[in-house]
Every structure is written in structure tokens, then in C-alpha cells.
């Protein structure tokens, strides 16, 4: 039976179920097929901190949202056009995001009295009319899967578990996705369990043909490929992108890569990714705690490796003293902070941008550290290379501030040509750099490059460069211990001037102001790039001019930032914190920027930002 095919520009799907229902895998598969069809896309996984929260509870709901389109998009979308709810908990947790008229696919098998009561439904929403605003497709997903698999050599439980593949088959049909990728994925995943493989393949096919035949779905949709720049693409998630960036940077610098790390959500996947890449000589050290992680990285940096430590906010707190040591030793070090909700353990699996001030100031003494932030999953790759460049060229620890949203979210990525990546020059010291009054040559570990103020990177094993360094204040140039008041004042200022001077090597802030006469600038940093971009687009379509700019460099700021801020009547700064960038901007430039903030553990919705922009324009 062939059905009417409707073309759409953009679709947002949310899969929601119990943690054990395989929603993340279902979402990943759908994403893969969608990427292969050439749509632009953006994803947002949202899962609980518990590995297996009690089944059927709101706390145990795991969701995966995906937006895909025939044009360039930057966010996973505010509200889904279709919600797949595998149980009452998933329905309850997600229904408030579903706009009127949206498609809602519910697994009726799970809407038992007990399950309904578990989440506080007093009546069955499928039957009591409360879902009337939506286009409900009540499907007995579990029993239809079991029925489809009854001739297969799998237990009832195993058959039930395949219901996510049934759902995937149905959605794949509904949105005209391919099936080949999923088939080969399953073939690989269950290569050693032929019965399970056969069952999953069959469940997928059954879901697909159910879509084709059921009257519940009268139309099938298609979304044409997006007109993206030509080239080779892959889909990439932020954490792996960051890991690839580190490997690339090490290669471009000709240095071995060393990671010292202690597992922590949402940063662990960088450790996992790097651990898979011993072929590149990558050394990954899972330390006894985060202090040892950064400590080992400092040791490796001292020895001449490209050294990295990866963590999240609580780990940064533990590393602070050691980062101060790296500031004092002036050794290259990359500190990756994949931010999550805080304070304390906070919201481990949710996103936030609340470590900016910790990165800036979370150390004793005057302890300046460059801070840079990627703006999207794929940008983690490029930001990692840039962090490495600054660390190596300036002999300094560098903060790379990612967050849970871009760490776990994904998007298509135009794969870069490895040959075109920038080179990084470690420029190791090779011999004496100072002549004593008596004419003999010696080595001064703190004699600075006049341009960058960077000190020599003199690694053990280099003849004639034996020297001692440490956390005690050092004499300017010669580097021996010095308690001299003037020397300390000089050294504090030199360390600050070195970091400030990095601004000479970073690009000016680019403002996107299509008409050139906007009164309002929306300025963001990090992962808010997508939502802000989308909000500006929407606002412009209403005929209102608004400018957008996004900071990649938080310390030092680009040289033109002050001028940019002062050239708009109003500057709005959306952040997933209570105004940390806003505070820095006000302090540095004495301008009255307006903070827009939200700390719900989720990225901004474009509609929230549109409302804020509109409200700001009205007060001009």
C-alpha cells in the first residue's frame, strides 16, 4: 500500500523511554541514517545520572532528541514534532514539551494500572481524553514485537527487548530513512549472538512494515538533503571530536600525547576515546584521583609531551593547586573541563556553563590562565588544536571549556584535510641562552622570548640545561629562588602580560549583523552558539535587526571586544549560569551588558531567547 508522501523542511523527533529501553542507541541509529541522507542535523541526548534508575519512574526516563532539516541548522530544536513515549513515565516527563498537533507515538503495552500509578496518573491518558491536542498513535509496541518474533529462537524477555528496533523501524519508515546502515550496525553488534541478531533485524523490519500497512499513519514524510558545502562528512559528537583534536594537535606539534585523567561524567568519553588510540602513541593514564591526573600531566609536560588532563567542575576544584604550579612552572598543559550542573556533585549528566569564573580565578595568587571554549560538537576538534597551540607557544596551562550539551550532542562535520591543519612548533631549548660576566655560557630557565614572553621549554635529557624549577617564586630571567619584593612584583606582572599578549595571536571578534544597523547585539560563548544563532534567525525573520557575536576566547578577550560592545545600544549575554561572562565584561569594559540566564541543566530554547531579545528591543 503506497501512502501519500509529504515533504518537510525540518523535523524534531524525541525518543523517550526507560533507561533500559535502549533509547540512546535508537536515537544514535536514527541519527546515523539521517546523516547518511545528507540532512543537516543536531542531537541532544538527555539521560539520568543513575545507570539503572528504578524502572518505570520519572527519574529513570532517558531521552534522545534529534532535529534534521533540508537546510543548515544549529540546534536540536525546542519542541519535538513527534514524541515516542515507551512508557507512562516517558510520556509524563516529556508531554509538556510537545506542541499541539504534534505526533505522539505511545507504547500502549506499558500503560498498565501499576505503571500509571507509579508516576501518579489516576487515569490512563490514552483513554481519558487528555491527549486530545495531539495526533496520538497508540501502538502495542511490545506485544507486536513479541508477536513478530514468536517463531524466533529467543526468550520472551529478549523479544521484548527488541521493541526499540521495532520503534526504530516504524520511525525509519515514517521519515523515509534508510535501513542498510542499521542492518550492518546490528550485524556487527550481534555478530556473536546470531539469534539476537535475527530477532533485532526482524523487529526492525516488522516495525517498518507496520508503518506501511497501518491506518494509524496516513502519510509518510521525507526531508530533502541540506545544501551543505561539498566534501566528505561524518557525524561527530563533542567528546570524540575533542579527543581527535588532541591527537591531531600532538601530531602537528610532533609531540607524544599524554593524558592524565580520573573518570567523571561528562568528560570520561574523552579518556575512552584517547585510550582507543594507542596506534598514535597516545599515553592514557587513569590516575588515582584528579590531582594525580593533572600531576602526571605536569610531569609529562616537563618531559616534553603534549600533556592534557580532562575532567568536569568538581575535578577542576581538586586540580586547582596543581594548575597554579603549572602557571608558576610555565609549562604547556591543556585542562579540559566538560562543564556540568553544580555546585558540588550537582547535575552530573546535565549541562551548564558555570565554571567560567572557576577557570578564570579558581586558584590562589595572581594566576592567569587562557580560557577558550568550543561552540559546537565539531568545533571541539578545532578548539582543542587552538588550546594546544596557545599552551605550547606560550608555555602555559590553557583551559578548554566544553560542556555536557556539546560533549554528548552531535552534528555533521565536514572532515578536515589533515594536511591543512596548522603546525605547532614546540621550539625546545637546545643550549645555553645567557652569557655570564666572565664570558662563560649558562642556561637561564626564565629568560623570556621578547615577543611572546614565553620562557624556554628545556626538557630533561638536554645536555648543559640542567636546572631546578618549582613553585617558589623565581628570579626574573635566571630562575633561581627569589624572595625579593620587587622581583615578585615583576614576575606577577610578567606572567599576566604574557597571557594578555596572547590576544595578539587571536582573531578579532566577528559580528554577524546582516543589515549593519542593528541596535542590539547578542553575545554568547561556548555551547549557546546554536540556540543564539537560531533565535537571531527567527527574530530577523520578523523584520527586526539583531546582531550576533560569539566569543571563543574568554581569556584574553579579542582586542576589538571593547569597541564591539560599545557600538551597540544594548548587549544581551545569554549564559547557562547566573551571569559569569556578564560579570567579566562589566568589570573589564565598564559597559552595562544585560545577562539572560537559565540554569535548568538544558540548553536554551530558541523561543526563550527570541522572547528575551524581543523584550529587550521593546525597552530600547
Amino acid at each position, binding site marked *: 500500500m503506497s501512502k501519500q508522501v509529504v515533504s518537510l523542511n525540518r523535523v524534531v523527533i524525541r525518543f523517550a523511554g526507560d533507561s533500559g529501553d535502549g533509547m540512546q542507541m535508537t536515537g544514535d541509529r536514527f541519527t546515523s541514517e539521517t546523516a547518511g541522507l545528507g540532512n543537516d542535523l543536531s542531537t541532544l541526548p538527555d539521560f539520568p545520572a543513575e545507570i539503572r534508575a528504578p524502572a518505570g519512574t520519572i527519574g529513570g526516563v532517558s531521552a534522545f532528541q534529534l532535529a534534521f532539516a533540508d537546510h543548515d541548522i544549529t540546534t536540536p530544536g525546542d519542541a519535538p514534532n513527534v514524541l515516542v513515549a515507551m512508557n507512562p513515565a516517558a510520556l509524563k516527563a516529556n508531554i509538556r514539551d510537545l506542541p499541539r498537533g504534534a505526533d505522539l507515538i505511545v507504547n500502549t503495552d506499558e500503560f498498565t494500572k501499576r505503571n500509571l500509578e507509579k508516576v501518579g496518573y489516576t487515569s490512563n491518558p490514552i483513554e481519558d481524553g487528555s491527549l486530545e491536542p495531539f495526533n496520538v498513535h497508540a501502538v502495542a509496541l511490545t506485544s507486536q514485537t513479541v508477536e513478530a518474533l514468536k517463531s524466533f529462537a529467543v526468550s520472551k524477555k529478549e523479544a521484548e527487548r527488541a521493541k526499540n528496533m521495532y520503534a526504530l523501524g516504524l520511525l525509519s519508515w515514517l521519515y523515509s530513512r534508510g535501513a542498510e546502515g542499521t542492518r550492518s550496525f546490528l550485524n556487527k553488534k550481534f555478530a556473536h549472538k546470531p539469534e539476537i541478531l535475527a530477532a533485532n533485524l526482524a523487529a526492525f523490519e516488522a516495525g517498518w512494515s507496520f508503518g506501511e500497512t497501518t491506518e494509524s499513519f496516513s502519510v509518510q514524510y521525507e526531508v530533502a538533503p541540506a545544501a551543505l558545502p561539498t566534501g566528505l562528512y561524518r557525524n561527530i559528537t563533542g567528546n570524540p571530536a575533542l579527543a581527535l583534536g588532541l591527537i591531531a594537535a600532538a*601530531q602537528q606539534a610532533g609531540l607524544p600525547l*599524554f593524558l592524565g585523567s580520573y573518570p567523571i561524567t561528562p568528560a570520561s568519553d574523552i579518556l575512552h576515546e584517547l585510550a582507543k588510540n594507542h596506534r598514535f602513541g597516545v599515553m592514557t593514564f587513569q*590516575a588515582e584521583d584528579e590531582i594525580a591526573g593533572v600531576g602526571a600531566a605536569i610531569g609529562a609536560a616537563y618531559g616534553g609531551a603534549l600533556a592534557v588532563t580532562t575532567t568536569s567542575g568538581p575535578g577542576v576544584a581538586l586540580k586547582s593547586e596543581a594548575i597554579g604550579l603549572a602557571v608558576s612552572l610555565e609549562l604547556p598543559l591543556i585542562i579540559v573541563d566538560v562543564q556540568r550542573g553544580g555546585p558540588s556533585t550537582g547535575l552530573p549528566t546535565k549541562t551548564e556553563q558555570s565554571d567560567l569564573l572557576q577557570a578564570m580565578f579558581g586558584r590562589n595568587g595572581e594566576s592567569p590562565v587562557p580560557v577558550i571554549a568550543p561552540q559546537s560538537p565539531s568545533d571541539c576538534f578545532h578548539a582543542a588544536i587552538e588550546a594546544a597551540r596557545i599552551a605550547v607557544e606560550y608555555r602555559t596551562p590553557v583551559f578548554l571549556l566544553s560542556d555536557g550539551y556539546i560533549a554528548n550532542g552531535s552534528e555533521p562535520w565536514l572532515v578536515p584535510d589533515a594536511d591543512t591543519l596548522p603546525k605547532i612548533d614546540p621550539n625546545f631549548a637546545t643550549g645555553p641562552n645567557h652569557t655570564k660576566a666572565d664570558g662563560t655560557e649558562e642556561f637561564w630557565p626564565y629568560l623570556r622570548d621578547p615577543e611572546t614572553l614565553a620562557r624556554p621549554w628545556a626538557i630533561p635529557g638536554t645536555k648543559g640545561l640542567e636546572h631546578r624549577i618549582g613553585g617558589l617564586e623565581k628570579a626574573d630571567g635566571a630562575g633561581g629562588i627569589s624572595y625579593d619584593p620587587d622581583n615578585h612584583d615583576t614576575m606577577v606582572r610578567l606572567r599576566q602580560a604574557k597571557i594578555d599578549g596572547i590576544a595578539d595571536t587571536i582573531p578579532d571578534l566577528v559580528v554577524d549583523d546582516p543589515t549593519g544597523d542593528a541596535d542590539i547585539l547578542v553575545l554568547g560563548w561556548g555551547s549557546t552558539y546554536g540556540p543564539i544563532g537560531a533565535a537571531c534567525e527567527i527574530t530577523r525573520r520578523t523584520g527586526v535587526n539583531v546582531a550576533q557575536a560569539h566569543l571563543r576566547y574568554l581569556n584574553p578577550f579579542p582586542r576589538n571586544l571593547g569597541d564591539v560592545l560599545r557600538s551597540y545600544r544594548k548587549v544581551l549575554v545569554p549564559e547557562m549560569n547566573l551571569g559569569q561572562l556578564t560579570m567579566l565584561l562589566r568589570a573589564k569594559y565598564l559597559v552595562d551588558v544585560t545577562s539572560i540566564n537559565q540554569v535548568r541543566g538544558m540548553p536554551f530554547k530558541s523561543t526563550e531567547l527570541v522572547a528575551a531579545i524581543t523584550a529587550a528591543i521593546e525597552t530600547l
Partner: protein
Amino acid sequence: MTDTYPSLSLVPKTDIAITAKDFKSDQEVRWCPGCGDYSILSNVQAFLPELGLARENIVFISGIGCSSRFPYYMNTFGMHSIHGRAPAIATGLAVSRPDLSIWVITGDGDSLSIGGNHLIHALRRNVNLKILMFNNRIYGLTKGQYSPTSEQGKVTKSTPEGSLDYSFNPVSLALGAEATFVARTLDSDRKHMTEVLRQAAAHEGTALVEIYQNCNIFNDGAFDPLKDNETRDDVTMRLVHGEPIRFGADNSKGVTRTEDGHIKVVNVEDVGEAAIISHDAHAKDPGLAFALSRLSNPRTLENTPIGVFRDINRPSYDRLVREQISDVIERKGPGDLQSLLNGSDTWNVS
């Protein structure tokens, strides 16, 4: 020379003759006059030439404390780091640089209080580090608070009524932490210390050397029973691998096994020479080494064993890291950046 020190086989040798003097840096030594740290420094400087290593391939890494100033006085590469973290820093260096001889200098507070975690993990991993723990049973640099090795009841500035903490026995702790090499020596006994350092240097993996060090300002005389001519021989049990464990004036005392399987100190006369057990530092089972470490009285220092308690073979962590990486490269070939970037699932937009 290379063969004497298999643990240093990857470290370049010196091509010029070097002496103790070459290991003295131009930094003025600033310990209190009479501090035990001086003798340790000169013992180490006197010993190092024996290794025949290129000086630039030797690194001293310390934490914080009086003892941790040590690297400044050594004309090698050196890092005075932060309190307690030297083993972690040294681990990163050792893993990435097999061509270095790496020494960690630490105090009883540095390694057993704030840095306890890093110490035990370095020991169990068996990273190729030689850790010299200067144990003066006090916090020297912060002017005399009790430390984790101070005897219970110790009166210090922070414990005017006597400390309540039960103390650590560093040797017992190290053995419990799966250490492959554990030894104890004395700041004032150059001959003994040199022999212990020699064995530590030869050992592949982490060697923990506890050095009893006198802090003549805040804990003077802490080890006097082991040093005074009068008492020295009576209380000091010198452990030598393969030899009967006997000590005391005229070697009159010895260690024997009790019927219930423990060990105890006895008069050799009472049990006969045949009942005295021999020291086995190479025993796989750390039982004897541990039992020996428990014999001493933490207050009186009676029955204090010095020497090498344990010295067993286990591949070092850093070697295993290197082997794993080269094994992967051998099996799969070196990585190609472009194919890594491409990944396995790409599509073309034309």
C-alpha cells in the same frame, strides 16, 4: 656498569668522568646547621657517580617540606613541586620518558599525610621511581607539628597535651601497598645508605627507601637509640638477604618462628642457631618482610630492622605502558590521522 642496573638500561651513560662534586648545584644549602638532610645530600651526591649516567638524564622531583628542598642542591634536572604530589608528577614523567633516572624526594608528612594516596598508588603500580622518604617524625618546615609517623602522645605545638593519632609504620604501609622494593636506612650511616641506594637503583619499578633523618630543631634525637654507640648494636637489626637475622652486641639476638607461625626476637642461646630464620628479601610472599617491619617498638626503637626488607621482580608500570603501545602499533600499524578523522561512517556531499 649497564648490567648492574637493569632498571637504568634505557638511560644514556655519561661520556665524561663525573664525581660527587659535579652533582653539587650552585644554590646555597639552607637547612638548619646539624640537620640530617645534609648527610643524606652528601651521601646521594657521593653515590650517584657510581651509576655512570649522563647527568642531564637524572631528575629529582620533590614535594614540599624541608626535605623537599633537596632538588635545588643537585646539579641535575629538578622540580620542587607541591605538597604531596611528587609521586604523581614523577609518574607522568616516567611513563613518557624511559631515558631518565627519576628520584622522588619526600618527607614523612609530604608522603604519608597529604600525599598518602599518590604514594600507595605509585607503589602498587611499580612505576620506575626511586622514592627517598626523609622520615624525621615531625613537620619540619611548618615548625614542628606532629606528623603521621610521630609516636602517639607526642607533645608538639599542635598537640600540647600529646598527640592522639596512632602512627604509621612506613615500611608496613609500603608492603601493604604492594611495593616491590622497600628498605630503611639512616641519615648518618653512609655505608649502609650507599648499599641501600645501590640496590634501590638496580631495582626495576618503585623503590621506597625510608631514611631516618634527625631534625635537630623540632625532634632532636628521635633516632638516637640507633645511633648512640652504647645502644646502637643492641637495637638495630641489619637485614641482609640470605643471611640469618641476628643482631645485638655479639650477635646474641636473633629472629625465630614461633609455634603459632609468628616471628619473635629471642636470645640465640635459648633456641639454638638452627632456629634462627634467614632473611629472604626476594620472597614472593611479603609475609616475612611485613612481620619484620612489625618487630620494632615505635617508642623505644628496640628491634628496628634496617636494610632491604623486600626486593622482588615485577615489570614496571611505565614499561608495560610502552609495551602495550608498541604491541598495538605492531599489530595494527601506526595511526593515520586522516583515516582517524574520517572515521568509519562518512558520506559525500557533492
